[in-house]
């Protein structure tokens, strides 16, 4: 049947080391987790979902910050079969944070579709430029207030974290359709000084266009919402500087393209810097 090993000094030393290693591993040998069907979801305490306390209460004499909204840039594509699942996550977040979450669908990248003679495409050159600039690797992938690239399964957690942050810039935006152009007014108020960029985008909701679905089929009646149509003030926006207690406003105009449904347009305005998005607001074009 074989023979036992000779316990030379070296072997003895090894055996001691091995015994020590096995002892260290012992917890793993008995470790086991089984989670029953009814225990797979843990309800999140309501406190966890509350936004950060609003410091700009009128009774507070000198507020230094205000509520921060969250920009979720969804890098998506019509040929991306997981993208509708990402969109479902966005819909859940919009329901939970109707006033504070601003989602933007940026079509482009390898799974974006620029259109053919018969099929409408939503991908744009600027969408590709953003995808490449952020060095993204897959779709759907999100940037939450321009933090790290985030897989859609982590969007809810990351958005919830960001909802607890505060901002030093308060913003408002208004957009009015005037014949074939949109007059846009962006207002900012500095709770502290901030130096960054102001970016204004035009989005369209309710676009019916082809989308590859998770089961691999192409749905030609898919409704695409919050689709980035064009930047209003350049691909990367314009310089923005505000001091504490300063109020500013900008007026911009955007021509309406014949392909867009003017009744379903909205404007997103945000200020950002190398550290991320400081504030974001959205308004429907009236």
């Amino acid at each position, binding site marked *: 049947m074989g023979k036992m090993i000779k316990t030379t000094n070296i072997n003895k030393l090894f055996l001691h080391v*091995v015994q020590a290693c096995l002892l260290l591993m012992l917890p*793993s040998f008995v470790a086991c987790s089984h989670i029953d069907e009814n225990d797979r979801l843990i309800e999140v305490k309501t406190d966890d979902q509350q936004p950060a306390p609003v410091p700009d209460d009128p009774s507070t004499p000198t507020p230094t910050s205000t509520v921060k909204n969250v920009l979720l840039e969804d890098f998506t594509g019509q040929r991306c079969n997981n993208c509708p699942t990402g969109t479902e996550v966005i819909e859940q977040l919009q329901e939970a944070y109707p006033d504070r979450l601003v989602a933007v669908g940026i079509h482009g990248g390898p799974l974006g579709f620029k259109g053919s003679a018969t099929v409408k495409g939503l991908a744009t050159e600027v969408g590709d430029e953003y995808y490449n600039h952020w060095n993204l690797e897959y779709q759907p992938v999100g940037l939450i207030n321009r933090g790290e690239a985030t897989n859609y399964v*982590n969007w809810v957690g990351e958005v919830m974290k960001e909802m607890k942050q505060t901002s030093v810039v308060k913003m408002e935006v208004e957009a009015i359709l005037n014949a074939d152009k949109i007059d846009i007014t962006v207002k900012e108020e500095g709770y502290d000084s901030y130096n960054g960029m102001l970016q204004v985008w035009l989005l369209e909701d309710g676009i019916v266009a082809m989308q590859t679905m998770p089961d691999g089929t192409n749905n030609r009646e898919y409704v695409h919402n919050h689709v980035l149509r064009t930047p209003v003030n350049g691909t990367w926006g314009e310089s923005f500087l505000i001091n504490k207690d300063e109020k500013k406003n900008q007026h911009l105009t955007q021509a309406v393209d014949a392909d867009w449904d003017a009744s379903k347009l909205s404007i997103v305005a945000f200020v950002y810097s190398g550290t991320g998005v400081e504030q974001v607001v959205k308004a429907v074009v009236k």
Partner: protein
Amino acid sequence: MPSFAFALLPWSVTAQEQKGVTLSGSVQSDILIPKEDTRTGAEKKEDFQTNTYVDLNLQSTHIDAGLRVEYLEHPLPGFENDFKGWGVPHFYVKGKAKNVELTLGTFYEQFGSGFILRSYEERSLGIDNSLLGAHFVAHPFAGVQLKALYGKQRRYWDWGESLIAGADAELSIDEWFTSMQEHNTRLRLGASWVNKDEPDEDIFPDPKHRWNLPRYVNAWDVRANLNTGPWGILVEYAQKTQDPSFDNSFSYDNGHVAMLSGSYSQKGLSVLLQAKRSENMSFRSRRSMSGTSTYINHLPAFTLDHTYALAALYPYATQLAAGEWAYQAELGYNFKRKSAIGGRYGMNVKVNFSYVRSIDSKWLKWGDDTYYQDLNVQLTRRLGKGFKLNLMYMNQRYNKQIIEGHGDMIRSNIFVADALMQLAPKTKLRAELQYLTTKQDQGDWAFGLLELSLAPHWMLTASDMWNCGETKTHYYQGLVTFNVGSHRIQAGYGRTRAGYNCSGGVCRYVPATKGFTLAYNYNF
């Protein structure tokens, strides 16, 4: 650039043997000086890109030690973002005694076919999922091998938070029974177990709930391998406990895989038949990870890794999470010399059929989709003293939607002729002609190659892959290779297409490139 390349030449490193200590190692440096190419979309993000590896190993009677330096600070195109970096990610000390072996540091290991554990390095894919910790092997009795390991997995330039523990026992029963040895029969039984201990994290399916994630995932594997005379059979089964992850859409179902493989090999004839069913077997050290990193296991591919360019145009990637039914049948036959069919020099015929299909929740039932099919026939025949011909026909079905996430089923027929001519005692010329015809994707492709070998040092290669279907693009390449001793230097210029590079069913997307290439290899 050249100064950098030559700086890598290890003039000072020579193999040496002193007092029973042996130094061995290797250098591999692949360099691209990229150019922009609007026609193919090739980009120039940097002036100079290289993947460079230097391996050093010291061996002695009782102690081995080694390390690997990797310089990937400006990596070649198509690797994941976190691949970039440089350092010494591989280092180990191994103590060896008569029947035991202990490694401390980083190590590689595979249990059985790799169903529940395979840590390995595959540079072409950017994979190195080595473990950092302790690895122990013992042969306490004849015919018994025991392994145990414990460690953290490498993910590029980090060590994962999960702790991986594993144990494996393999019994060679035939070593206990002389009658089995007399009858040329070998029977090996194996069993393995792997445990992943991964810290909890906040992953929310919706804003009101978070997943209750299992801290421990256990996986086990049993196998039996019987060889008797020309016959061989391998049966293997593995199972994994609840492991909700991004890959399986946070399913709490168990994962499992079963494989049956039979072979027959007699003089001149070889037959291989195998079937495998896998379900929910994506096993990673990080549950929220996507991409090619952090896999703890690997399922063997039942599809061939083709070397001919057009046969490798649409390679299959194993569907770990979704699961698959995979079948493979391979037949090889040598027609004897001076026979009616074999002719003067004999002829070799190889037929391979691979078929991969979706699964159904009922165990034995097939799902609706074909993922991949490859039927290929290869004939190799020497037609004269200095002329050898290899012909191949391949019929392929490639479900682009499943494999790449978009697109349709691509049905193609591929024809290959590969001729090797001995022009002079030290001069050989090899020529390849290939044609792929399909109505889908980018349509037809043609490929031609000429390779002149001037022994013992030089080889000149020129090739062109032409999309004669949709894009009419030429992907040309010229290479000069110089070999001296165990040094090999290859310089070239060319354009490569965007596509998938696969090995063993694992694939990496490689973008189009254009530019000068330089490759240096040295083993000592």
